[in-house]
C-alpha cells in the first residue's frame, strides 16, 4: 500500500488541533505566542502536503485519484474512503492556502484581555485549535468518496464553527456585541442543523435504495459514491422519479443552507458580521464552499434526472440571490455585513454555474469557488485590519483613510476590485465563464444576472469612497498603515488574484476533466454554436471587402 497522502493531509491539522489545545496556559508574553506558532506550523505542513497532493494529481488520469479506503462500519457498507478529482483537489488546496493566512491575520484577535484571569488563560489555544479542527473537517469533506463519511464531517464541522463564531468576536462593540454574537452562533447552528437533519434522512433513504438494488459488496447497501454513481448511470440503480426528487431535495436543502442560497441565507450576515474577520473568511471562503462543492459532486452525481428537473427552479433562485444579495450589500451600514451580502450574491453565481449544466458554467463555478475564496479573504482580512484599528465596523465611522494609511487603502481597493470582478484579476475569469455557460442554455437568466455586475461595482465603490476617500476624519487621523505581518497576509492573496486572472490555464486544466465527467453524469452536453466559425485560427481571417461580405 502506498503512502496514505490524503489521510495524512487531513490528519495533520486534526493532530495540530489536539496539540494546540493541549498546550499549557501562557505564563509570559513569550509563551503566549507558542500556541499560535504551533498552530501555524501545523497549517503550513498541511499546505505542503496539499501542494504535494496537487502535484501528484494527474488531470488526464482517472476520475478519482490517490484513493484510500478503510472499512469503517462494515454492516452498513460504510468505509473511510478518500479520493480526489480535479474539483476536490483545487478546493483542498485553496483551504490549505487560506488557513495559514487566516491564522496570521488573526494573530492578536484571540489574545485574552486579561491573560491572568481564569477565562483568559487558554483562550488563544482554543481559537487556534478550533481553526485547525475546521480545516481538518473541511479537508475530509473535500476528499471523501463515501456519502456517509462526507455527511459525518459535513455536520461535525458545525461544532468548531459554532464555538468560533460564538466565542470570539472582533473588538468592535461592547456587551451588546457579545449578545449579538451568541445569537449569530445559535442561528448558524440551527439553520445548518436543520439542513443536516433533512440530509440525514435523505442519506438513509439513499442507503435503503442501494440495499434494495444489492449494490454493496455483501449484496447489501453501500455508501460508496463511485459505486452508486456508476449504478445510476448504468441503470442498475433506478429510482422511482418521486423518490429521486425527494432524495435530491434532501441533499440539496442541506447544501443550499450552507452555500447559502436565497432565501436560506439569513444566517450568513449575522455569522460573518459578529465573528472575527478570520472566522468570517473561514465561513465564507472555506466552509460554505463545501456546500457548493457537494452540489456538484453529490446532487448531480447521485441524482442526475432530478438535478435536471430542478435546474430551472434553482437557476431562478440563484439569480434572485445574485441581485438580492447585491442590493442588500448596497444598503448595508456595517462593513462586514456588506461583504457577507456580497458573498450571497457571489454564491448565486456559483450555484447558477453549477445548474446551468454546461462545461463553461461548471468549470466557471469551480474556479469561482477558488477565486471567491481568495478575493473575499483579501477584502475581509483587510477590512478586519481596518476595523480593529478603529474599533468600529460602521462605514460611517471611517473617512479619508487613504490619506493616512495608503497601503491599507490600496490593498482594500484591490480586494474590492477583485470582488467586483475586474478583468485582469481572477474572479473575472470565473464570473464570465459562469455567465457565458448560463447564457448558452438560458439566455434570459444570463442577461438578468449581468445586473449583478453593475451592482457589484456600486457596493464596492461606495464602500471604498465612504471609508477611504474624502477629508480625513478625526477618529482615523492616527491610524497606522499595514504592519509587516499584515502585508505578509495580503501580498500572497493579491499575487494569486493576479496570477489566476492572467494565467488561469493550469487550474482550468485540472478542473476541466472533472467537469466533463460531471456533465456525463447528468447526461448533458454543451449546446453547439448556431453558426460555428469553420476554423478558429487567426489565419483564416481574410481581409474584409468593403461591404462586410467574406471571400468564401
Amino acid at each position: 500500500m502506498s503512502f496514505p497522502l490524503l489521510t495524512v493531509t487531513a490528519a495533520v491539522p486534526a493532530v495540530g488541533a489536539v496539540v494546540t489545545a493541549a498546550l499549557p496556559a501562557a505564563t509570559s508574553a513569550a509563551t503566549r505566542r507558542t500556541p499560535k506558532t504551533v498552530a501555524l506550523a501545523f497549517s503550513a505542513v498541511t499546505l505542503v502536503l496539499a501542494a504535494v497532493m496537487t502535484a501528484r494529481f494527474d488531470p488526464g488520469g482517472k476520475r478519482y485519484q490517490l484513493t484510500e479506503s478503510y472499512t469503517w462500519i462494515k454492516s452498513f457498507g460504510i468505509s473511510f474512503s478518500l479520493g480526489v478529482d480535479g474539483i476536490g483537489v483545487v478546493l483542498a488546496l485553496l483551504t490549505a492556502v487560506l488557513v495559514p493566512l487566516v491564522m496570521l491575520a488573526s494573530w492578536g484577535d484571540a489574545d485574552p484581555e486579561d491573560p491572568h484571569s481564569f477565562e483568559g488563560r487558554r483562550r488563544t489555544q482554543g481559537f487556534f485549535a478550533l481553526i485547525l479542527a475546521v480545516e481538518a473537517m473541511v479537508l475530509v469533506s473535500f476528499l471523501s468518496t463515501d456519502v456517509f463519511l462526507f455527511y459525518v464531517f459535513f455536520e461535525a464541522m458545525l461544532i468548531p464553527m459554532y464555538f468560533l463564531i460564538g466565542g470570539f468576536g472582533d473588538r468592535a462593540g461592547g456587551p451588546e456585541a457579545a449578545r449579538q454574537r451568541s445569537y449569530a452562533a445559535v442561528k448558524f447552528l440551527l439553520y445548518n442543523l436543520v439542513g443536516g437533519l433533512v440530509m440525514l434522512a435523505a442519506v438513509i433513504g439513499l442507503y435503503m435504495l442501494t440495499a434494495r438494488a444489492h449494490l454493496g459488496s455483501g449484496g447489501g447497501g453501500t455508501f460508496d459514491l463511485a459505486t452508486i454513481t456508476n449504478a445510476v448511470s448504468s441503470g442498475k440503480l433506478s429510482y422511482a422519479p418521486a423518490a429521486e426528487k425527494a432524495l435530491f431535495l434532501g441533499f440539496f436543502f442541506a447544501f443550499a443552507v450552507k452555500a447559502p442560497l436565497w432565501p436560506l441565507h439569513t444566517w450568513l450576515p449575522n455569522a460573518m458580521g459578529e465573528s472575527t474577520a478570520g472566522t468570517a473568511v473561514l465561513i465564507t471562503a472555506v466552509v460554505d464552499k463545501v456546500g457548493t462543492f457537494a452540489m456538484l459532486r453529490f446532487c448531480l452525481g447521485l441524482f442526475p434526472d432530478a438535478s435536471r428537473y430542478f435546474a430551472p427552479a434553482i437557476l431562478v433562485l440563484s439569480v434572485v440571490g445574485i441581485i438580492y444579495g447585491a442590493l442588500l450589500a448596497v444598503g448595508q451600514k456595517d462593513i462586514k455585513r456588506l461583504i457577507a451580502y456580497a458573498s450571497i450574491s457571489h454564491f448565486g453565481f456559483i450555484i447558477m454555474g453549477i445548474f446551468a449544466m454546461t462545461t463553461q458554467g461548471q468549470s466557471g463555478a469551480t474556479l469561482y469557488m477558488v477565486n471567491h475564496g481568495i478575493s473575499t479573504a483579501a477584502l475581509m482580512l483587510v477590512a478586519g485590519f481596518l476595523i480593529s484599528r478603529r474599533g468600529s465596523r460602521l462605514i460611517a465611522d471611517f473617512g479619508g483613510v487613504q490619506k493616512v494609511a495608503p497601503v491599507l487603502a490600496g490593498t482594500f481597493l484591490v480586494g474590492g476590485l477583485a470582488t467586483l470582478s475586474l478583468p485582469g484579476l481572477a474572479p473575472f475569469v470565473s464570473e464570465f465563464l459562469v455567465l457565458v455557460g448560463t447564457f448558452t442554455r438560458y439566455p434570459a437568466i444570463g442577461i438578468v444576472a449581468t445586473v449583478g455586475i453593475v451592482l457589484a461595482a456600486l457596493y464596492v465603490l461606495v464602500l471604498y469612497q465612504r471609508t477611504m476617500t474624502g477629508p480625513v476624519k478625526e477618529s482615523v487621523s492616527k491610524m497606522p498603515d499595514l504592519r509587516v505581518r499584515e502585508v505578509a497576509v495580503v501580498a500572497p492573496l493579491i499575487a494569486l488574484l493576479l496570477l489566476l486572472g492572467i494565467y488561469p490555464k493550469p487550474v482550468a486544466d485540472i478542473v476541466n476533466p472533472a467537469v466533463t465527467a460531471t456533465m456525463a453524469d447528468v447526461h448533458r452536453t454543451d449546446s453547439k454554436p448556431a453558426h460555428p466559425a469553420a476554423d478558429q485560427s487567426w489565419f483564416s481571417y481574410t481581409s474584409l471587402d468593403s461591404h462586410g461580405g467574406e471571400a468564401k
Partner: protein
Amino acid sequence: MNALIPVLVAAPLAGAALLLLGGRRLDAFGHWLGVVASTASFVAGAVLFFDMLGRSTADRPVHQHLFSWVPVGGFRADVGFQLDQLSITFVLLITGVGSLIHLYSVGYMAHDERRRRFFGYLNLFLAAMLLLVLADNYLLLYVGWEGVGLASYLLIGFWQHKPSAATAAKKAFLVNRVGDVGLSIAIMLMFTQFGSFAFGPVFGTAHTASEGKLTAIGLMLLLAACGKSAQVPLQSWLGDAMEGPTPVSALIHAATMVTAGVYLITRSAAIFNLAPDAQLVVVCVGAVTLMFGAIVGCAKDDIKKALAGSTMSQIGYMVLAAGLGPIGYAFAIMHLVTHGFFKAGLFLGAGSVMHGMDDEVNMRHYGGLRKYMPVTFVTFGLGYLAIIGFPGLSGFWSKDRIIEAAFAKGGTEGWILGGVALLGAAITAFYMTRVMIMTFFGEKRWQPNAEGHEPHPHESPSVMTLPMVVLAIGSVFAGGLFALNNAFLHWLEPITGHSEGNAPLGSLTISGLTLLCVAVGVAWSWAVYGRQPVPAVAPVGSALTRAARRDLLQDDFNHAVLVRPGEYLTRGLVYGDTKGLDGFVNGLAATIGGLSSRMRRMQNGFVRSYALSMFGGAAVLVATTLLMRSV
C-alpha cells in the same frame, strides 16, 4: 520585428508596476521613469509603423499569439495581438499624445506630493489602452476596456480628499459598467452564434448569422461604446470627470479613452455592415450626442466643462460617421486622430491657464490673458481654429469629410444627418469662440482667491509649453497631411472598407455651406461676448441656458428614474430581510427558548468545555450510526 508588439504594452505596464510598488525611494525621479516608459512604447510603435509602411498592403496586418488564456470546452480565449493599419494608428496616437502629456505632467504635477503615483496611474492607463486596441479578440479587448476604466477611475479621483472628485470617479466607473454589460452580452451572443469571439472567426462567419442576431450584437456593442465614449444616454459621467487633474482630462477624457467607442464600432465593421438597424441607432446616438454636447458646451462657464461638452459633441461626429458604415469609418478615425491633437492641445492650454490663475476654472473670472500667456494663447488659438474647422487646419479636413459623408448617406436620412452635422459646426464655432474670447480677450475679470491673493498670471514652464507647441503643430498640419491624396483613407481602406455613397450636393457646395455655418457661429458669438463686456457673474439666462448649465438635466433625470427608486428598493429590502425573512427564524429561536441562553453559557473560551461539547457531538454521531442498525 513582431517581438516588439508586446513591448508596446509591457513598457508602460512595467513602469506602472515599478512606480506603484516601488515606494518612496522612487519619489525623486519616478516621474521621469514614467516618461521613459511611455516614450519607449512610442518608439516601439514608430518602428513598427515604419516597418508596416514598408510592406505591401496585403502583408501589413500581423498577428501574434502569445498564450492560451481561458480554455474551457469550446470556449477558447487567448492572449494575442493584432497589429494592422487601424491598431497602429491608435498606437501612435495613444503613445504619441500620451508621451507629450506625460512630459507636460512633469511640470503640472511638480508640487503634488503624490506625483509618483500619478505617473504610475498614467502608465497603467497607457498599458490598458494599448491592450484595448491591440487585442485580437473581444474578451481580451474587454480587459483593456475595463482597464482604462480603472485608470480613469483612479485618475479622476486622484485628489480623493475632495469629496467631489471621489464622487465623480465612482460615477464614471458605474456608468461605464452599465456599458460594459453591453460588451459582455455581445461577447456571449458571439459565442452562442459563432463559438468564438476572436476577430478573425467572428468577422469571417458573421454573414451566416441572422440579421436579428447581428443587430442584437451591434446594439450591445453600441451600449458599450456609449458608456466609454460618453454618448447619450450614458453621457452623464464625462462632465464630472473634469474633477481629475487637467493632463488626465487631456489624455483620457479628450484624446484617447473616450474615443474607444469609435474604435469598437469601427473594428466591428463586419457586424455593423450586416445590421442596418443597428447602424441606424448608431447614427441617431451620434447625432443626438453631437447636439447635446454642443448645447451644453455653450452654457458652461467652467473652461474644462465647456471643453468636455465639446469633446462629447466631437465624438458624436465620429460615432455618426462610424454609423454611416463604409462611407464614414475612415473619416471617423481621421477626425478621431485630428481631434486627439487639437483637443489635447486645448485641454493642456486650459491647464496652463489654470496653472497661471491659481487653479481658477471659471472663464468669467479670466479675460485679457493673451498678453500674459503668449505661448498658451497662440497654441490654444491654433487648436481653436482647428476645432472650428478653419480652412486648411486639421479640423477642417476631417470634419468636412464627415459632413459630406452624412449627406452621402442619401435620402431623407442624409439630409437630416447632414443638416445636424452642419448645425453642429455652427454651434461648435459659437461655443469655442466664446471660450476663446472669455479667456484671452476683453477686460480682466480676475478675482482674488480664497486667501485674498490677486492672481498673477504667468506663462507656464517650457516642460509644459513644449507639448502644447507640438500638439499645436499637429492641429495645424495633421489634417492636411492626411487629406493629401486621400492618404489616410487609402491607409485604412483595407481594414475598414470604403464606399463613396451618393451625395446630393457637390463636395464644394458642402464645404461652402460648412464655412458659412462656421462664420455665422463665430459672428454670433462675437456679437454676444466680444462686442460687450462679459459679466463676471452669470446672468440668469433663458430656460434652455439654465437647463444646459445643468447638463440638460441629465442628473436630475437619472436621480428621479434610477437613483431614488433604487434607494427606496434597497431600504425596503434591507428592512424586509431583517424583519421578514429573519423574523421568521427569530420566532423559531424564541420557541426553542432557553436553548440559546444555555448555549451562550457554553461560549466561555474554555477549551475544556469545547472538548466536552465536541465529545458530546461525536457521541451523538455514534449513537446515530448505532440507531441506524435498527432501521
